[in-house]
């Protein structure tokens, strides 16, 4: 792991009490979100938040053209003609130049959905955003701040009310991986690294994989705590995150897939054994699916054999965590 070495090279610009003198404007931004049976009001809220962020950034002359690209993996279109028109009107009132809506007609997953939308990516930056997110008014401006350093490949927003427990460098923000619940990526990174590995990661860890590939390509992955995004997560009365059965399944599948792809076959095997005998049916189902792909020879080709970027902790995390939501 080379986190310390990488961040150390950047210390000249981030001095205590000051911000970078020049932050290049976001020349043009494509904002992508992928729907899957969104809760009522989610899309409207998403657009309202983005509208605030666009208005504030435009007010400071830091933002060029903005295209909001909405993909839909639902079984029936989540937006009707009327609701799309209302969403477009609301977006345009706040300065979002273009809104497009693609109903995929199939559940491509988060990674597959974003990849489908990225086919049309022409802008200077892409912002990945979850549909149940609500951008803070300064989110775009704050996400742009670390981009003065051309080696920054991903800037991740801070999620509230449940902050991600991933550790990050308190001075420079460098972190193991970035959640694409809200993350800004310059075009050059997509050109260099490619898109999400949708074949291996349907719903989870597509962003971990993308982050690690980004770092393998020599870019920094930065967490920006002042770039706030509200992510509509809930807690159980035991203080745990509310997760659906599908989330349990895909998280287990992604864990095995990530271990395999990042050249940790023993870990992948250990996970496979554990999930195979788990009392949770989602785990057993994921194990079965992984085993089938193993037999078919369709698992991804392992990379990062030296373990330059990949991190696998005993608690099952892909970065050092300050705390765990499972405590």
């Amino acid at each position, binding site marked *: 792991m080379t986190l310390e070495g990488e961040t150390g090279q950047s210390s000249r610009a*981030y001095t*205590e*009490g*000051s*911000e970078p003198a020049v932050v290049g404007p976001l020349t043009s931004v494509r904002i992508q979100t992928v729907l899957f049976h969104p*809760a009522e*009001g989610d899309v409207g*809220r998403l657009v*309202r*938040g983005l*509208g*605030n962020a666009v*208005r*504030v950034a435009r007010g400071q002359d830091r933002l060029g053209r903005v295209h909001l690209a909405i993909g839909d993996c639902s079984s029936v279109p989540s937006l009707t003609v009327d609701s799309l028109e209302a969403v477009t009107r609301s977006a345009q009132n*706040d300065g979002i130049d273009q809104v497009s809506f693609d109903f995929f007609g199939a559940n491509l997953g988060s990674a597959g959905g974003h990849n489908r939308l990225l086919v049309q990516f022409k802008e200077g930056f892409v912002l990945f955003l979850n549909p*149940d997110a*609500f951008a*803070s*008014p*300064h989110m775009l401006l704050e996400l742009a*701040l*670390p981009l003065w350093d051309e080696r920054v490949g991903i800037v991740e927003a801070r999620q*509230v*009310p*449940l*902050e991600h*427990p991933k550790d990050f460098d*308190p*001075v*420079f*923000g460098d972190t193991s991986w970035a959640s694409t619940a809200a993350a800004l990526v310059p075009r050059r990174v997509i050109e260099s690294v490619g898109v999400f590995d949708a074949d291996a990661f349907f719903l989870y860890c597509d962003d971990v994989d993308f982050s690690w590939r980004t770092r393998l390509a020599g870019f920094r992955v930065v967490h*920006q*705590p*002042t770039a*706030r995004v*509200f992510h*509509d*997560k*809930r*807690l*159980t*009365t*035991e*203080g745990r995150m509310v997760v659906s059965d599908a989330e349990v399944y895909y998280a287990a599948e992604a864990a095995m897939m990530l271990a395999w792809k990042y050249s940790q076959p023993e870990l992948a095997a250990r996970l496979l054994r554990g999930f195979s005998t788990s009392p949770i049916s989602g785990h057993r189902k994921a194990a079965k699916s992984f085993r089938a792909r193993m037999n078919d020879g369709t698992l991804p080709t392992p990379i990062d054999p030296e373990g330059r970027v990949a991190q696998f902790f005993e608690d099952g995390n892909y970065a050092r965590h*300050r*705390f*765990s*939501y*499972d*405590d």
Partner: protein
Amino acid sequence: MTERYRFAYSDGTVYQSVVSLVRQFRVRDASVVIDVGCGFGAVAEPLRDEGLTYIGFDADASGLADLEARGFEVAQVDLLDIDAALPTMRKKLGSRGLAAVMMIDTLEHLSNGADVLRGIGTIAPDHGGYPLVIAVPNVTHLDIGAKLLVGRWDVTETGILDSTHVAFYSSDGLRKTTSDSGWVEIGRNDFVLRDSDQHFPADAISLQRGTPLHDLLSSVRAQAGEGALVNEFVRAYSALQRASSEVGENTPGPFLSVLMRTQGKRHATIQEALLALAAQTSQNFEVLILAHDVSRDKLGDLQYLADCFGEDFSGRVRVVSVDGGGRSRPLNVGVELAQGQYVALLDDDDIVFGHWVETFERSADRASGQIIRCVPAEQDVRPTTWLGGRNGYTTTSCPRCPWPERFDLLDHLLECRTPPCSYALPRSAFADLGIRFDEKLSVVEDWDVLLRVALMCGVADTGEVTALWRKWGEGGDSSKLIHSDAEWRQARDAVIAKLDSQPLLFPARSLMGLLQLQSRIEALNAMQDEDGTMSDDWESLLSRAALADESLRAIEVIKGSTSWKLTTPIRAAGWVRRRLDRRG
């Protein structure tokens, strides 16, 4: 007019209160005092003794004849036809200067009171500035309410419930009627009678001071607002400036008013608190940012933070500057300004989940008027410095839910087990019951209000986690860290002493909780030998402890059984006693 309205002027009567206000507010260079609905004119002589010219107007000839015989000017008018009455009054006044107008015990006889009040403002438009002094019975006297509760409504020949009254006034009703008619209150000298003319029959328990029932009603009524012991409102008004119309009085407010206290020091967390509010799934709320002792510059910053959100949100956010006082002051300012059906407290370092408002709103639909309580969660944070030298914080623990999922009043009397961001209070508790945050308390002001409102309104649990209370570690400036232990103890004692000084309303089935405590105490007492040392007979100790547990379990079972509800307290008390006796 019958003789029953012939009252004499004397000290200690409502008439003295009226004359006192006329003396205080009369126009100095004018000499005429008009008495609208004068009856027998009880105040005529004392006003003449002041050097004033008294003119009485009434529909009833007998009172007018009596006044005329006593040497006073009179004219007959029918106030129910105010358009016809006004020219007569103007003519009688002529060009003389008008020092004051009085309406004593008249308004309550008029079905067109507001029209008459408006007309009085036009009697002498050229003279201007004359005050109007009104005396009107108060139907919200404690005696009336206490009797109504036991099914008594005693109409009498004269007095507060005079059989000829057609309009009934509370303090607020009088304010609204006068305000709507173009009068603004400038002084008051209410006539107070602890025992009104309705204080009968003498043996009615609800009227007897010292009975828990009366004392409870009395404390509720006294807290609820002015007028508990006022027999007649005696108030002076001026038409010099039209009272401002009451903004929004008739337009429904939002469901929730969010009171956000801030000292403008937590730039990082307040942005997130606002963000979380703007992201709520229900936007049926307003936000009052109560900036406590905040400089003008920082007020501007707060306004900017709100304005960064779109008009659909920022239009519902008000930044209110509050100067002076302690932690309670901004909250009291907030409840005065709040328009919502419910009021919730959200400090500038707390944060809420997306369904905070929605959960309150949904629950209030089925438990309207009760406190709506969610399951509180807390998370450790500590201050830090973010990129660029900005003050921030870092989260250092997973969220926990250390507080009970369900509200228990007895538990909450021991200590506060619900942080303020996890409940919504019915605004009626403030607007109608007159509850306010105790400005003498430097801490636990929220616990004090939670208890007082819970005792009056009850609590409905939602069973959902909707808010995160931030627990600051080293370097934070939360009240927990700033105030000393002694201060906390002192405030807690003050809250309990205040509650203990008055009768309290405990919700149904509280007796079970008390019996539970009592059974624990008895079991513990039984574990002690006669000399006060603990018994070393472990078998005995364990069996007694088991008995206590058994009784608690039985009580829980009984509490959960709806078919037992009606007679539960009696049966359970007997059961516990018998079991303990047998073991005794």
